[in-house]
């Protein structure tokens, strides 16, 4: 294949991507849901909905609420479990020529270990994204991702049980994102992705009740972009592993901001709900940006912010 200019290819550790645009976990189903609108084979990678050891039914509704330029979700990590994921969802993705990144989650280190070793044997799985925003049930429900030691333990466990590229997905609900980023880098992560949703809340004043049955939920969408971008920039200045930028990306321009801040790839989340075609638009727009800036490769753009 002749090299298309500008060159959009990037590598996240050993994970090779034809372009830096991935879908964010939980916002693109298992890929198939968007197949009639998006040419899946054009994507950098598909990150599937977070998978746990056993299926989860998720939280009571209402599970979503609209906020100013954002949304809150408390889906409660509903998913079909790793077995059904492999038997029912992966076969479809096998036929789409696109890397599949599996987002995993657990309540205990053992669950992460179990998932990592099960998925390690599945050839269709290109990489693992470790969601550490989940509550650690053994440590009283404090999220793994808010404590550097717990984050490190989970990362090390996954690392020891899995030879595929490991991306650790960071929680933004921390004082200093660089501390967590460095902790998981030290523990053997091949890359970090950030940010997950920010804890938020909405209240129905008429009923005097929280809008979400779960009381609090995760804030996502354009509203959080400035926060996500700042954290990506901070993390990029703190670690040496590649960074995947996430948070409120709705356009190629948003994506380029993350690349300039130091992300080697990006994920589009909530924007898939608003504009299902967005991922393809972002890919095309990044290419146009590079042409406009006379860059031959997206590599020139990564971390190219002048401060």
């Amino acid at each position, binding site marked *: 294949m002749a090299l298309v200019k500008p060159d959009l290819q990037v590598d996240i550790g050993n994970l090779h991507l034809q372009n830096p645009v991935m879908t964010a976990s*939980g*916002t*693109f*189903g298992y890929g198939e*849901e*968007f197949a*009639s*609108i998006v040419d899946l084979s054009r994507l950098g990678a598909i990150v599937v*909905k977070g998978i746990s050891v056993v299926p989860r*039914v*998720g*939280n*009571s*509704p*209402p*599970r*979503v*609420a*609209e*906020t*100013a*330029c*954002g*949304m809150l*979700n408390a*889906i409660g990590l*509903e998913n079909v479990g790793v077995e059904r994921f492999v038997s029912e969802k992966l076969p479809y993705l096998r036929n789409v020529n696109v890397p599949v990144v599996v987002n995993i989650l657990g309540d205990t280190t053992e669950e992460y270990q179990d998932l990592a070793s099960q998925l390690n044997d599945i050839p269709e799985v290109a990489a693992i994204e470790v969601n550490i925003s989940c509550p650690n049930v053994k440590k009283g429900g404090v999220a793994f991702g808010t404590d550097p030691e717990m984050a490190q333990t989970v990362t090390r466990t996954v690392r020891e049980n899995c030879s595929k590229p490991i991306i650790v997905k960071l929680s933004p609900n921390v004082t200093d994102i660089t501390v967590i980023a460095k902790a998981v880098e030290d523990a053997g992560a091949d890359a970090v992705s950030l940010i997950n949703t920010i804890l938020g809340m909405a209240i129905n004043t008429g009923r005097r009740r929280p809008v979400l049955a779960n009381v609090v939920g995760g804030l996502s*969408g*354009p509203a959080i972009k400035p926060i996500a971008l700042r954290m990506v920039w901070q993390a990029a200045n703190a670690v040496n592993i590649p960074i995947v930028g996430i948070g409120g990306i*709705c356009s190629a321009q948003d994506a380029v901001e993350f690349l300039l801040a130091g992300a080697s790839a990006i994920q589009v989340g*909530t924007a*898939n*709900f*608003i*504009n*299902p*075609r967005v991922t393809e638009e972002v890919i095309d727009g990044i290419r146009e940006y590079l042409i406009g800036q006379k860059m031959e490769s997206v590599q020139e753009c990564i971390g190219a912010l002048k401060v």
Partner: protein
Amino acid sequence: MESFQEKSEIIKVEQLTDDVIRLTLHSQAIAKATLPGQFVMIKVSGGHDPLLRRPFSLHRTDGKETVQILYKVLGRGTKILSEFCAGQKLDIVGPLGHGFTIKKDKPTCLVGGGMGIAPLLFLADTMLNSLEPQNIIVLLGAQTKAELEPLAGGFEKLGLVVETATDDGSLGHHGFVIDLMDKFETDPSREMYACGPYPMMRAVARKSEILGWNCQVSLETMMACGLAACLGCAYPRKYGSGYVHVCKDGPVFDSEEVLWL
């Protein structure tokens, strides 16, 4: 099932009452693919506020070029939608979801309340391909005559007999549309199709259960994507634990499938 994302031109805007509007959109792909009970997700703002698309049932289609939606101005999103004019374009995604199942040759009763009447016209129209008009009973309710009359007209034009109820008694029965079901109690089994406010659908579902009739209901939940991706539109199942997802498993469900709260 195939869905499409289109920039659809608005062909016609009809203000039926102060706050009820019928939109006709040019949308070949959706017009050709859609079935009764399915819906579309419409982006109402050019910016990011309000952020989410709004779901609307398909009210009618010519099966070739155009689709119609019928909606009420409720909050911010529908307010913005009401300011669009013919000639402008809307970003719409559809057809979405699992619609009504038409039971050939079975006597039928359609019960609609308020904006829940919207998808029933499309349903009735499609039913007439396989059912005689006299086998289709249409019961419609709304708050006032002003709201109900334009909606009922569509069914009458199809040659169907419509019975009406209004909250204020200004048209038909003074009271709930469900009251109109009483006189059919001795009828042989009918397939019920209900769409409207939750309490109305629950009442229809209960009555159907008592009569031993099958009943299909069209549910509404808050929806972020409409594409079975966000899992936000959960509604509790009747049997077993867990939830159905209204945008994919529904919006139309067998009333026995779901838990009535």
